[in-house]
């Protein structure tokens, strides 16, 4: 142990993995800087309706983590910020972080007056653009840091009206981007993932048929904070779907798309079947799969959902989804167990698309090496570690476990500095 103050650990990405790394490290006595690209923490998990296997809403775990964050003075959180430069400095790194202009400052009380005064809208990034949101708004319900965001460029009068509407003087239209440099002992990349774009699957109707949605969009449809207030409906006509199909491995385990299995989509679709049956009890749900990958206690979810009346699992990957003239969707697959083609007509088709690492194809200031699938590899020599889905595809629980381990490794590496 040295007497001098230890340099902090830099954590990039404040999703469930990044938050966990920062919290575990800080609660073990380290300093941490948590940098998040979005205006609020929470990442992908915040966009999930319920997560398996216990089907808890993300608010549970997330609220607990936010309270841990607020309480812990060893963690500094920078939202709407990105690492723009990184150079080796001794054992660790010297990094520059650029933060977008903070048009809404800490005086904000989340009263909502600016939102009411704002006439302009944007495609809501929190809901994958499935709905419109005001240009002045809370990023998502319960967003933390607890303050509004302002998409200044989307506001016709440059923000004058909303500024006048704010009673607390929390809006600063002249805010400038800020750059700050830090000396850090170790770096943890928890940059997460993005859904494989359904537009790359036009043969399955992705980006072609309006009622072909991705699994992540199903989460938003089912969520009370989603674009429909939690009602599962067809995007084209707003009606509840009576016939729903799930296409497993849509763009996964496929050399033409993602070569690997994301490991969560089987469970996600079973869960979604549960959402549908809960809201629309007489709905017919068919899941077209190659393998049902539900290891461990997830097997219970499979048993429970597949026993529901009106839920059918068909072995055989769907090869084609097309619109029919009357606005429904025609899906073609081989029912392998029956040895014949199963052609079905559906109201809604959900593509179980996989997780693609955000490190793949990204500019990597830390020189991080990637595996052939685009997931990051630890570089202990350089004190750079990778956590969560940036490291490998996994579910929320595994991501949290993984992040805890990474926190320990990063802290150990930091001790050398």
């Amino acid at each position, binding site marked *: 142990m040295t007497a001098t103050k230890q340099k902090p650990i830099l954590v990039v990405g404040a999703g469930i993995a990044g938050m966990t790394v920062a919290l575990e490290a800080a609660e073990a006595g380290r300093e941490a800087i948590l940098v998040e690209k979005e205006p609020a923490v929470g990442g992908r998990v915040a966009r999930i309706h319920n997560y398996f296997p216990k089907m808890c809403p993300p608010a549970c775990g997330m609220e607990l983590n936010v309270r841990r964050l607020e309480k812990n003075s060893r963690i500094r959180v920078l939202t709407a910020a990105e690492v723009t430069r990184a150079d080796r400095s001794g054992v660790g790194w010297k990094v520059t972080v650029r933060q977008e202009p903070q048009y809404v400052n800490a005086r904000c009380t989340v009263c909502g007056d600016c939102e009411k005064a704002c006439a302009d809208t944007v495609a809501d990034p929190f809901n994958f653009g499935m709905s419109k949101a005001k240009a002045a708004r809370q990023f998502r319900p319960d967003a933390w840091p607890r303050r509004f965001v302002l998409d200044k460029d989307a506001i016709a009068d440059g923000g004058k009206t909303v500024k006048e509407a704010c009673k607390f003087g929390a809006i600063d239209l002249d805010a400038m981007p800020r750059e700050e440099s830090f000396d850090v002992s170790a770096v943890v990349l928890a940059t997460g993932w993005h859904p494989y774009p359904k537009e790359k699957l036009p*043969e399955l109707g992705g980006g072609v048929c309006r009622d072909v949605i991705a699994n992540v969009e199903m989460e938003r449809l089912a969520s009370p904070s989603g674009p429909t207030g939690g009602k599962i409906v067809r995007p084209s006509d707003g009606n509840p779907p009576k016939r729903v199909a799930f296409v497993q*491995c849509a763009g996964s*385990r496929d*050399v*033409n798309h993602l070569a690997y299995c994301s490991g969560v989509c089987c469970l996600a679709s079973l869960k979604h079947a549960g959402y549908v049956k809960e809201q629309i009890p007489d709905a017919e749900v068919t899941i077209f799969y190659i393998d049902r990958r539900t290891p461990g206690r997830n097997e219970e979810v499979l048993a429970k959902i597949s026993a529901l009346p009106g839920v059918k699992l068909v072995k055989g990957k*769907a090869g*084609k989804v097309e619109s029919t003239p009357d606005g429904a969707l025609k899906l073609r697959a*081989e029912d392998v167990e029956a040895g014949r*083609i199963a052609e079905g007509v559906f109201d809604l088709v959900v593509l179980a698309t996989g997780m693609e690492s955000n490190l793949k194809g990204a500019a990597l200031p830390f020189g991080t090496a990637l595996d052939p699938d685009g997931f990051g590899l630890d570089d202990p020599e350089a004190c750079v570690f990778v956590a969560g889905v940036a490291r490998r595809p996994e579910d929320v629980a595994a991501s949290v476990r993984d992040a805890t381990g990474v926190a320990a490794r990063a802290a150990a590496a930091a001790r050398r500095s």
Partner: protein
Amino acid sequence: MSVSELNPSAGFREELAARGGATAARCYQCATCSSVCQLAPDDGPFPRRQMALAQWGFGDELVSDPAVWLCHQCNDCTVRCPRDAKPGDVMQTVRSLVVEKLAAPSFMGRLVARAGSTWPLLLGVPFLFWVAALYGVNGLQFPAELKGFREIVPHWLIYVVFYPVSGLAALAMLVSGVRFWNMLGSRAARSGSFFGNLIPVLIEIATHKRFGSCEAASSRRWGHFALLWGFVFAAATAGFAVLAETVLKTATPLPLVHPIKLLGNTSAVLLLVGGAIVVYNRLIGGNRTGASTAFDNFFLGLVLLLIVTGVLTEAGRFAFPPALAAWVYIVHLTAAVSLFVTFPYSKFAHFVYRALAMVHERMARPQGV
């Protein structure tokens, strides 16, 4: 169940792999291929099932499976296959194994199946035969001015060679065809008349409608279509020419505007266009056209040689010195003999096997497709 009850044909997987079907091992049975195939019937989808049989080495099962021939290798399956297992290539390889296994006599099947190394023999023997025959007939002396090709190769020699060669090839094809038909019959009960079902199949072949439903290699339909009709017209030309000479005693060479000449030239144009499309597709195709094995290349090469030397022969009478025109003509005759002799054992035989499989399919499914 014991291993012998499963009865995978010994060595079949290795055989398949060596002949161009090694990618079958990559298949994980997702069934994308069957679902995107436009040709597979709903109650007997392929090629997912055939890929499983190939992986397990069930050679007997595969070789007697009519679905293998219903496939036109348009490669919609291969393009979409998530494992790059190339079902289109595997099906094509199985077809080449069927042709070899049912060959009569069997050594000819083996010889042509290994055309990658035996092609010098398959072309060289007919070439040496023509050179020797012409040496015997006219000492390989060519006239100073060429009025017609009968001055180089007398027509009686053409008849003496091609009647027995085509007769033997037809007999060998008939034997293999009967073997194939009986093999299919041992798997599924058939009903209805053979000829009654042959007519719609021939109409289908003549129009290439099924081919048209393929997506990945749609341009291939027209290449294949032009080659088919080019061959049909060429055969008709030959038939009419024989009739004209032997029955009507028409003087040769025929004038360029003679109907038989026009028919012959139409077939040449069709063959040239078809051949060009097929070659172009193979050059740019990648997964859309599939791998080209020795089995494919020998047949295609032979057809191209026949077409090109045929056109050059016709032009050569006017444009080339007689000796050059004569040698081009000898190469043309070489290609023709080689094509006739190898017909029942080369890719050419798919015409018979596929037609039979399509008739079988109709008769084994009385409701039709």
